[in-house]
């Protein structure tokens, strides 16, 4: 395969109203040499690298914080990674998890675009041993 051909996975965040079908039609209407294939969570784009990247830039404009993408190693429809052939590919569960969390990334992006500095989030911390000791003494004096 031509090394200038790029395959890209495009995911639509769960909070978006866009459908894979709408994205596919949008790409087709752009008239670039980019093939588009609908998937459960978005589409797969394939074509000359620059065309794919241009398409991607245009696609993002549809819903800037809710359309995400990464390149894909295997060409679209490659039987080596076809779910029907062997079962789901190893990365499927990860993609599924990341897709679910895109709504969180969306919130993060909106915040960042506003130029806000978010407060340091609270993370679970271990209780200092002295506090624990006090607690035990309160319960079991």
């Amino acid at each position: 395969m031509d090394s200038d051909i790029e395959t890209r996975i495009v995911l639509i965040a769960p909070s978006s109203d866009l459908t894979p079908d709408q994205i596919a039609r949008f790409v087709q209407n752009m008239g670039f040499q980019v093939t588009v294939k609908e998937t459960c969570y978005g589409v797969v784009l394939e074509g000359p690298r620059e065309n794919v990247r241009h398409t991607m830039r245009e696609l993002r404009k549809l819903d800037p914080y809710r359309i995400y993408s990464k390149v894909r190693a295997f060409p679209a429809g490659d039987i080596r990674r076809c779910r029907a052939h062997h079962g789901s590919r190893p990365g499927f569960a990860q993609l599924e998890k990341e897709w679910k969390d895109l709504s969180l990334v969306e919130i993060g992006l909106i915040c960042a675009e506003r130029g806000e500095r978010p407060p340091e989030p609270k993370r679970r911390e271990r209780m200092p041993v002295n506090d624990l000791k006090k607690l035990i003494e309160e319960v079991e004096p």
Partner: protein
Amino acid sequence: MIKIAQLSCGTEYSGVQPEIENAAETVGAKMVYPDVNMESIDKAVKEFGFNPNSAQLKLMIARAVELAENNYDADAIFIATCFRCAEAALVRTELRKYVQQHTRLPVVTYSFTERTKAAQLLTRMEALVTIVERKELLARERQVGLTAGLDSGSSTTKAVIMRDNVIIGKYWLPTTDVFSSAETALTKALEEAGVKQEQLEALGTTGYGRFTLGKKFQAKLVQEELTVNSKGAVWLADRQKGEATIIDIGGMDNKAITVRDGIPDNFTMGGICAGASGRFLELTAKRLKVEITELGELADRGNPGKVKMNSYCSIFGIQDLVTSLAAGNTLEDVASAACHSVAEQIYEQQLQEIEVRQPIIQVGGTSLISGLVTAMEHTLGQRPIVPKDSQYIGAVGAALLSSGLLG
């Protein structure tokens, strides 16, 4: 097409995935991966009760749970992880126990390196397919008619003639040329039986040379030694019903097989080195200047505790042996230590990969070395059953099973 579910980590990055698939394809099977989604992975890891750090191992667990819960249709299970990975070894062993507890699918485990080739996997895959495809044939308990079995092993070739469930002729000799060794063994066995080759109604072949001999002798049955030897072992030991563990320490590799009603449901084949094989005992006998047939009795008179010998490598093992002799140890003690070294390695390498079930039947040519059986007894805490004619398991199994193909 037989579907073998693959539960593995590292195969695609060790260059062995194509070898696995080639081996499966050669025996008419296909590797498949049970489908799982993210939620099922979390749930499966919880249910299984071991939470590995590596995500691919979590995926293995989830795939096993899919099989256990009957959500995915497969005929057999192949569990494989990288050799020397501790985390994966734990998961591999525990998963094997889990799927055996929850399914009736035959299972084989394997730990691979980048050097693993399809040929090494072939016998294992073939056995999985045989267990699935020939279940009815493997359930056969009686030999009928007049049939012969040929077992072409790496060290010895064995032939057996059976008539109406009785052995009427048998012969063995060291394997030189596969074909001429088999021809001699068969001729001698036929002589003892007092029948002519043309009278045979069927012939079965097994062992390393099975394909070559199968063609030459127009065999009705050409089958790998795991299923054939199991059948021969339970027939000879008269343990056709229920569970058993078969230990077959061969010239080149060792087999540990668990059976249910004579049909294997889990097996391992080793090993990485000849230090745990019959070949090592041959070398020992040669170095001690005794016949291999005398080694067992010599070992029985020795005290293994007096000599330190436990090498994974036959060369280092012989070095240990030479050093022990030079230190003034007796031939008996050294012979005994050699037998114990082999037994311990069978225990460490093979028996950890299967669930040892009672009774334990020890077979193959090495089971005639009484010192080795004693060493197995010391290692396992009980003496294995060694049936009469235990070196003929493969030939008996082939004669018995080939009679099942008579029209």
